[in-house]
């Protein structure tokens, strides 16, 4: 244990913090892109049964591809580093957001949408002023799940020389048995967990700001 703390003292300042920043950035950018894709697709699909079924099936299929394989498969097209990392993470992040967007929009009380239509809101106005705000708690929950999943998967990006904390985990696992190998793995995992907690706190704050007081529990 003492050695681990000593290790952290030396490793944290430069290397681990830079890797954590890159990890968070990769996940943040990917979640943002997943949200744009998932929410937009969800808005088109929630009243169209076929489109909803097809898009959910596609997003579901992507998530079943082993992450190791997906990262590797992208290399011939996108090379190494950030591009395949962002594309793969974005692809993985879509399903929870799309699923929750569709569920959230379909779950809006029909009396509310009926009266919105009845007083003369067009279908676009209903979507933006009524349905999306009311579905926002469910959609935000989907984004949160995506974020947590991607924080874990992002570690795999190291196999395509992607950014983040994965590199230390892989090199540690490759050198298991050597003096600092285990600490290398442990410290990276610990920082991923800390990132997850930080993102979660950010979501809590965001919920307060983004969800109307009228529909908060």
């Amino acid at each position, binding site marked *: 244990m003492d050695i681990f703390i000593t290790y952290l003292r030396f490793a944290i300042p430069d290397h681990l913090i830079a890797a954590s920043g890159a990890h968070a950035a990769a996940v943040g950018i990917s979640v943002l892109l997943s949200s744009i894709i998932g929410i937009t697709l969800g808005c088109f699909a929630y009243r169209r049964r076929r489109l909803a079924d097809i898009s959910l099936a596609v997003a579901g299929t992507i998530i079943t591809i082993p992450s190791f394989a997906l990262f590797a498969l992208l290399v011939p097209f996108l090379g190494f580093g950030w591009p395949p990392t962002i594309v793969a993470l974005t692809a993985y992040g879509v399903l929870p957001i799309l699923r929750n967007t569709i569920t959230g929009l379909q779950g809006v009380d029909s009396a509310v949408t009926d009266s*919105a239509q009845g007083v003369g809101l067009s279908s676009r106005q209903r979507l933006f002023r009524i349905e999306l705000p009311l579905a926002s708690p469910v959609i935000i929950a989907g984004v949160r799940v995506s974020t947590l999943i991607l924080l874990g998967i992002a570690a795999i990006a190291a196999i395509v020389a992607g950014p983040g904390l994965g590199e230390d985990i892989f090199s540690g696992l490759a050198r298991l048995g050597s003096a600092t190998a285990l600490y290398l793995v442990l410290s990276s995992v610990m920082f991923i967990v800390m990132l997850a907690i930080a993102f979660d706190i950010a979501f809590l704050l965001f919920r307060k700001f983004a969800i*109307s007081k009228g*529909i908060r529990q």
Partner: protein
Amino acid sequence: MITLENLTKTFAGQKEPAVKDLSMEVPEGEIVVLVGPSGCGKTTTMRLVNRLIEPDSGKIYLEGEDVTSVDSDQLRRRIGYVIQQIGLFPHMTIGENIATVPHLVGWDNKKTSDRIDELLNMVGMDPADYRNRYPKELSGGQKQRIGVARAMAADPSVMLMDEPFGAIDPITRSKLQNEFLRLQEDIKKTIIFVTHDIDEAIKMGDRIAILRDYSTIAQYDKPENILLNPADDFVASFIGTGASLKRLNLAKLGDVELVDWPTAKLEAGADEARAVLDRSDKEWVLLLDEQRHPQRWVNGDHLAQGNGALEDSGVPATSTAIMDTTLSSALADMLTSENSTVIVIDSDGAYQGVADLPTITKATKAMRVEAHGGEGHDAIEEHGEDKEDASAGRLKDAEA
């Protein structure tokens, strides 16, 4: 004015039409109630008017303008819309809910804000208190008031109301109905009101359209004519028994002669009250405060027991009604009040008179005479013994 011309609607995948060749006219400033059994197409008919459901054929005219193919969103902004489930927007404050249509039609903020205050006052809710609350903080009755206020926000001349008071407890419902009728006297909207409850139809409607399958009109007339002279067996059975009690819903306290009851000033003291009581032939005297608001009922016994202070003697005068109260609800109040009376007050709460059981009896007698003299008598005989109500039965006995 709303004119419907040969409207027909068949839903996809159904053989029978929901609405078949319906034509009707809703006169300016009147409440027309569509009433009928479940599944008769009354809600569909109402939703055809603001084209939430598009008709297969036929025409809809609003104030003479053919609106069958104008932009439906624009059309709906001109028509108030209230539904049973209310459908307030839960993420918006009460003020924002009411402001929905004014914003859509481009009112400026000042005008909208003034209108919100005006409407909240109109439905009896303090703007300072309620404007910034959320729907979840309101009771069912308050939500429905806001639903009505939202529908009236941009001052539409036409309103559609689908069982607006259907999901509310009976006491609040009756209160909201009365409030709305009072409001309607000022605002004079042209209203289509849907209900399955014939009693509500009689109470609310200037005219009633009784609908049967495919939304065909079985009878379209003023409530009193429908009660006195149902067009056929379907209408008669839909009205049900007790038509004479239902007719009490049509007369208001303002239509009958009130009794001038002995009153005394609360501050004048027990001696004055006793003197008033001695001069009259009644057993109770009504005590009024300085603004002539009814305070307490006292009788001879109370005055004998009392120690001169009247504030706590007798019983509180809680059974009050206004000129617009129907005889039916006045009767209900009478039956539960201590001395079988209802005190009639004006809008400021000041004493106007008293209605008692003889008041009601006199009024029903007058109605019976009217029925006997008019077409109503024939109608009663046509529809056979089983459908007669109590008063009709008595009428025949008297003839025999």
